[in-house]
């Protein structure tokens, strides 16, 4: 399934090679003033104009009946000496780069040629993709130098032209996107994420051709910088969705994706063309379900077999990016992408007599729902099982996930379930933070400068999945070491022994660890007093957001930690001081820390949750205050005195 692909920008600069050419004084002044606004930037786009035009093939029988040409024309001013402009654009089997020319400071074609490179675009985690990266580089002659370029890209299949964004990785003063829509072309241009932006719109009709030109302009756009754990760009950045609905030729209307039904028709057509020979799976299915009587047992046997035995390898190769590989191929290869794995599971469930269907979904990374008839809505495929009127969503790429539980990345997302010529729209159920609860309990006594005791940890839901996955993929001879390292959290002042864990292959129930623990250097004796620092993990201690962060912070799932430690007060000592308690509760997160002196013990409890798996940027201030409080208590000490 096609994922949105972002430009890969390589930090690259050429220092030498171009002699200083004349730079007008006013351009130098402009650069100087822009430097005040954009301190860290090497260049700024003064104007960026993108135009889309639609063209029918001359010959009606042409294999490419409709083409879209995208022309990008940009003027850039350099703010730093010894800088080269670097940019890149993706193309694939359904598009190509037709041309690029450089423009001089007056916007005229320059004699200088950009340095072009074309390579396979290998996105992390994708084994093979038809995407290619077309990168173009040219040097500036110095600070204040203006240069530009004009690039033409042609889409040979409009399905793959889904959206256009305004932002770039450098600031742009004026960005205009226009669409020259002929009268024979029906296209919807949907404005997305325009809140907080002053969009200037315009449309004009050419009286001769009746073509309408729609223009969208945004000014003063900051650079869009990559930030870790940020939402997908479709959630945040302003863009135009391009929904090509139909075109008319010789009074015949040719539908494109007018609505989701049209899209489903195309999807299901691709699925129908898959040559599944499910008879090859029969012996396996029979073997797996033999002796099992309950539905859940049988379904689990099949679902888990695919999880355990089919390796996820992503392919995004042209049409194969949308058509599943046949069930027998995935079965024999023992690998497949999400579509191949979903299709295999579906066929296995069908053999076992269940109602199983392929299902298209966009993960939470994508902001859209199915009110948008576009392939940009979906980036994943799963399998839906309908049992006793209830729908279960099975995602075999989620290794170790139990039947009936759903990964956060698909929770709450709309799905299209195949249903013959029609389709069903449903939503994947959401679950609360309790599902992913991490619980820790420890009891300590003081032994000189150390805290010694027993500790147990309990992981549930997605907090558990990550451990099971990493463990299963670790070399056998390193498993024990890696597990210990995980528990110690890379803190060499922690010693653990007698580690016992529950079954690290078991999907159901919580994962438990029990072990003996020594926390070294946690007790300081000064005079008649003992100073004790009890929480060695100090979760979230450095999780405050700095003022430069602009995007929400996403957690991989709804986080929930509950901790209870007990410290036996040594004989002859009394509690002189306990750090202050904290109780900060917001709808988005909770931070609570509590100390109590009870029955000869100090009881320390802590609760941290991120209830919706996101800290929105509007809440960064409150979050940072909570982290500051947390830090304060981590740095404080319990004081015992004789």
């Amino acid at each position, binding site marked *: 399934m096609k994922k949105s692909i972002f430009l890969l920008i390589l930090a690259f600069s050429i*220092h*030498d090679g171009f002699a200083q050419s004349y730079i007008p004084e006013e351009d130098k002044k402009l650069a100087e003033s822009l430097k005040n606004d954009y301190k860290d930037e090497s260049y700024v786009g003064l104007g960026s104009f993108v135009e889309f035009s639609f063209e029918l093939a001359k010959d009606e029988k042409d294999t490419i009946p409709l083409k879209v040409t995208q022309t990008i024309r940009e003027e850039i001013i350099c703010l730093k*000496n*010894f800088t080269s402009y670097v940019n890149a654009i993706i193309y694939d089997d359904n598009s190509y780069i037709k041309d690029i020319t450089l423009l001089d400071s007056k916007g005229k074609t320059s004699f200088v040629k950009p340095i072009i490179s074309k*390579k*396979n675009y*290998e996105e992390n985690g994708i*084994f*093979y993709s038809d995407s290619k990266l077309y990168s173009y580089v040219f040097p500036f002659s110095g600070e204040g130098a203006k240069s530009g370029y004009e690039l033409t890209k042609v889409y040979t299949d409009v399905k793959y032209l889904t959206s256009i964004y305004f932002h770039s990785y450098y600031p742009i003063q004026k960005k205009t996107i226009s669409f020259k829509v002929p009268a024979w072309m029906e296209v919807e241009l949907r404005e997305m994420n325009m809140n907080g932006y002053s969009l200037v719109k315009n449309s004009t009709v050419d009286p001769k051709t009746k073509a309408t030109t729609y223009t969208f302009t945004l000014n003063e756009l900051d650079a869009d910088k990559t930030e870790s754990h940020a939402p997908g760009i479709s959630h945040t950045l302003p863009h135009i969705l391009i929904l090509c609905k139909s075109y008319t030729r010789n009074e015949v209307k040719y539908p494109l994706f007018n609505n989701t039904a049209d899209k489903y028709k195309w999807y299901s057509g691709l699925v129908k063309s898959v040559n599944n020979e499910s008879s090859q799976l029969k012996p396996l299915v029979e073997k797996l379900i033999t002796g099992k009587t309950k539905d859940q047992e049988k379904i689990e046997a099949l679902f888990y077999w695919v999880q355990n*035995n089919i*390796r996820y*390898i992503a392919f995004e190769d042209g049409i194969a990016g949308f058509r599943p590989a046949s069930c027998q191929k995935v079965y*024999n*290869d*023992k*690998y497949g992408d999400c579509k191949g794995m979903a299709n295999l599971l579906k066929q296995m469930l069908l053999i076992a007599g269940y109602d199983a269907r392929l299902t298209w979904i966009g993960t939470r990374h994508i902001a859209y729902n199915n009110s948008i008839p576009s392939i940009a809505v979906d980036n994943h495929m799963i399998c839906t099982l309908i049992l006793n009127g209830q729908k279960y969503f099975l995602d075999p790429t989620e290794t170790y996930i139990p039947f009936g539980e759903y990964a956060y990345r698909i929770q709450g997302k709309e799905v299209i379930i195949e249903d013959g010529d029609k389709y069903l729209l449903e939503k994947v159920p959401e679950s609360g933070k309790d599902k992913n609860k991490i619980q820790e309990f420890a009891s300590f006594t003081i032994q000189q400068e150390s805290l010694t005791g027993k500790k147990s940890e309990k992981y549930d839901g997605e907090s558990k999945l990550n451990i099971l996955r990493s463990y*299963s*993929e*670790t*070399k*056998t*001879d*390193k498993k024990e*070491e890696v597990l*210990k390292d995980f528990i110690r959290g890379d803190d*060499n*002042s922690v*010693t653990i022994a007698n580690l016992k864990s529950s079954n690290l292959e078991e999907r159901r129930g919580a994962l438990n660890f029990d072990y003996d623990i020594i926390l*070294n*250097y946690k007790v*300081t*004796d*000064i*005079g008649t007093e003992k*100073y004790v*620092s009890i929480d060695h993990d100090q979760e979230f201690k450095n999780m405050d957001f700095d003022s430069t962060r602009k995007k929400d912070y996403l957690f991989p799932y709804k986080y929930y930690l509950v901790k209870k430690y007990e410290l036996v007060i040594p004989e002859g000592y009394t509690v*002189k*001081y306990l*750090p202050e308690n904290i109780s900060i509760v917001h709808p988005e997160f909770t931070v609570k820390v509590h100390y109590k002196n009870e029955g000869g013990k100090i009881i320390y409890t802590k609760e941290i949750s991120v209830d919706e798996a996101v800290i929105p940027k509007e809440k960064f201030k409150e979050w940072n205050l909570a982290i500051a409080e947390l830090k*304060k208590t981590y*740095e*404080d*000490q319990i*004081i015992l005195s004789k």
Partner: protein
Amino acid sequence: MKKIILSLLSLIFIYQTYAQDITPDEIFTKEDPDFNISDIPEKWKNESAVILCQKLIYNFDRKNGKIIDKEIIRKRIKLLDKSSINKFAEFYFISTENIGINIIKPDGTLNKVDLKAAVSVSEEIEIPNFYKSNFRSKREYKKIAIPGLEVNDIIDYYYNAEAKRNLPNTFEYIFPEILISINNTYPTIKQKIEFQVEKGFNINFKNQNGAPDLQEKASPVEEIKIFYFEDSNRDKSENERWSYLYRNTPTIKFQVVYIKNAKNSDHFIGETGVPKKSVSDAEVIAKVKDLVFFDNGFTGKYRSHLGNVLKTYKKDHSLKEVPPEMIARQAYFLYRHYRYFNPEGLEAGNNYQAGEDILFVKAMFNALRFYKVDFTIVLAPPADVSDINDVVLKEELMWLVKIRDGNNNIFLFPPSFHTSFGDIPEKYYGVTAYEIIPNQDTKLYKAERIQITPATPANNTEKTSLVVDLDADFSTFNIKRTVKATGIQKESQQFMLYYFDVAMEEYGTYQRTLYPYYISFGTKDYERQNKYIEKVSERLQNDIKTDFELVKYGKYEIDYKGRGYLLVDDSTVRSEKNPFVFHDDFTIKGLLKKAGSNYFFEAGKLLGAQVEIPEKELERKFNINYNPRAYQTEIKFKIPEGYTLEGIENLNMNISNETGHFISSAAIEEEYLIIQISKQYTHAFEKKEDWPKVVAFLNAANKFTQVKVLMKKKI
């Protein structure tokens, strides 16, 4: 004498073809009982994978004016867990058509992998080490998703990758030298390495640390000689902190060369077609004679320029004679000037690309001999690669010059921008080397053994002084730091230097000697220098960040007194004998913790993070190699008014044994807390049995960083 020898880096593949002489199918069906192994010994049952058998053939040939090499690899590996499945399910290989991959299921079923689906791998993608060619650094690779792979499967693959290139006009071709440990990523039941060498080629080979020796076997083709070794039951490769892989694990080194005139080569050439397994003193002497004595490369501009420099020096210092040590010093720095600042380079040596070190020795030889300064030529192997007695490749030896200054030896290694006169690179301290004592009569050259000055804690020191002030906000600490480093510690700090100071100095010196080239800096140079300063500052900040919560970094300043220079011989101004010194200042937080109404001051943390030995490293397989060195730190903390410190006795530590020590003491002097810390690694080498002693003082240092003192409000 001008020679062109293709170096490793300039290997240009004129074109490649792929040998089709033996197909994978023929290989797989060929009777080789070693490749019938399917079972693994009990002791390796818990491994991720086991190499059942591997055969690596390196073929070097010459035909129709072409030099041809082939890398013919067959590996049969049993995959025992998911980790190895993941690794081999995405399989990489050198781009070749002559490849076959078979998967053997536990029931014996054999599945041939269809390689049509293989795709090219982009250059930027890092190829997993396991698949990388031992033989070439850069080649095209392909990858394929291997179908049907399951635990307990055997993957059996074979490929033959061939490269051809035109034989250079010089009729010489040097293949890259290979140095490999024969411990593999996975334990290995059987491995065979074979060199098939055209009989006119030379091969150098040496096994060390228990790796098997090379044997010859009958060849079916008259023109080709076959040498091989077999090895079995080999544990997987494991590397440890502070150990030299090639000195501790079974290692082989080899190189093939095709050369017409061995005399002019800097390689040690044996009899053609016979592996050369050692180098004699006589050969080393002969190399020195051939490459240095009989070469008149440096009698031109370099020496006349040196003459001018010495004349000026004599005049400036009103001397009758320039002392020999000063002649050597001038020769050394003038050589550096020619290599780095003179666009014409060394007039006679421009085309000589064999090695910077030999070029340097040639220059020094000509200068010192002309001015009658006593010297010897030294050839030394780096400590992490080989013992002098195991040297067999020219790449293992560094050429240098030794002079004497009174009773002291001064070893002159090829200079770089930042080296001082007499600097010894880290890996050459204390190694035993050849010393060739030249004589006007070349017949009387002698070869002796000499030890390069060993490193000691006394000549590798780092002294740090921290003056620490707590802000009135009781949160941030302002620190002024001074670091003084000598020896290897000095080398490691010299990344801070930019070449401007050297260039400016030389501008002043050599322009006076009327040398036509002079240095001038343009805007670009200053931009680059500023960028460099930013980079250094960034690196210093990152270093601080690994130890502390950095709030603000001020700036750093280098004290240039520690730079060894040309004409300045006043050690109060500048001298290589002075330490490298820099000062900086920064603000940190996070060292003060509330403890009721008082504060905990994490005084120990001011020492900075110390080496931690995790539990899994407590057992030691190999002996320990590191640099002997001594760290001294003085921390001066101003106690805030109205407060006293309690518990400073916890900062006193003393763990001392023959491998090293960690000693610290704290005292209150007026309004200051003064902490003195000394940490020392005493020797360059410790036996693995003594590892607990090393761990003892390392642990003490760690424990020190955890010590807190109580800052109590005066009542």
